[in-house]
């Protein structure tokens, strides 16, 4: 199995490794290679002592509905579209056609 490592250089020059898939597992070393070696060992050690169990939780977390704001980025967006007017002219013609059919 492959794990993604995030290597971050700290102010004092040491390398800190965090592993997004294993947030509790972090290591630190003086060099990049040493940091990767220690991370490999830490992951192997943690995984050898761990079991993965998946469970279902029927309840959904409560979410507060965010009121949607005015989508100004779309206001006037069709100005440059030469087919925008034709689209609505066509739509009107199609509506008129149904008047005749009544």
């Amino acid at each position, binding site marked *: 199995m492959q794990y993604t490592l995030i290597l971050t250089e700290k102010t004092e020059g040491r390398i800190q490794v965090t592993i997004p898939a294993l947030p509790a597992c972090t290591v630190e070393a003086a060099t990049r290679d040493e940091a990767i070696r220690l991370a490999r060992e830490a992951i192997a050690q943690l995984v050898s002592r761990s079991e993965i169990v998946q469970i279902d939780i029927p309840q959904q977390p409560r979410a507060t509905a965010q*009121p*949607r*704001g*005015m*989508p100004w980025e*779309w*206001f*006037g*967006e*069709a*100005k440059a*579209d030469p*087919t*925008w*007017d034709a*689209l*609505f002219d*066509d*739509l*009107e013609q*199609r*509506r*008129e056609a*149904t*008047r005749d*059919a*009544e």
Partner: protein
Amino acid sequence: MYLWDANFLRAFGEGYATLHSYLLRVPWSEIALPSVVVAEVLRRRCDSALKATPAEAPVAHRRLLDTHQMLSQFQVVVFADACATVIERLRQRHRRRKRYADLMIAAIVATGQHILVTRNQADFHDVLPHAQLAKWLDDPPEASLP
């Protein structure tokens, strides 16, 4: 809720100045499109995308997706079961010959006690009460909004 007829979606896309002044006063959460308008606009865009020549297709398909994204910014009020009953009542009440899409929109507006915002007042004034019709583009917001 203010339901926009197709002519207001057109004005929104074109960036009409009068509409802009309404949008500054009316919360976006109070504005929606009837599902009829969504269907009409997407049908036209889908037709263009599917009938385009290979040379025209990239632009036609991009416009379809752009329009889809614009429409997804709006709340949509759907023609629901109750609208089917209301539309029959409207058919019997109106005096002029009607366009089917207009009747469907009027049924959605009447069922939900919404306000229809349209420039085409003529086709709705005998099926919807005056209080359920608004024509924002022709009146300044001070004259129309409560």
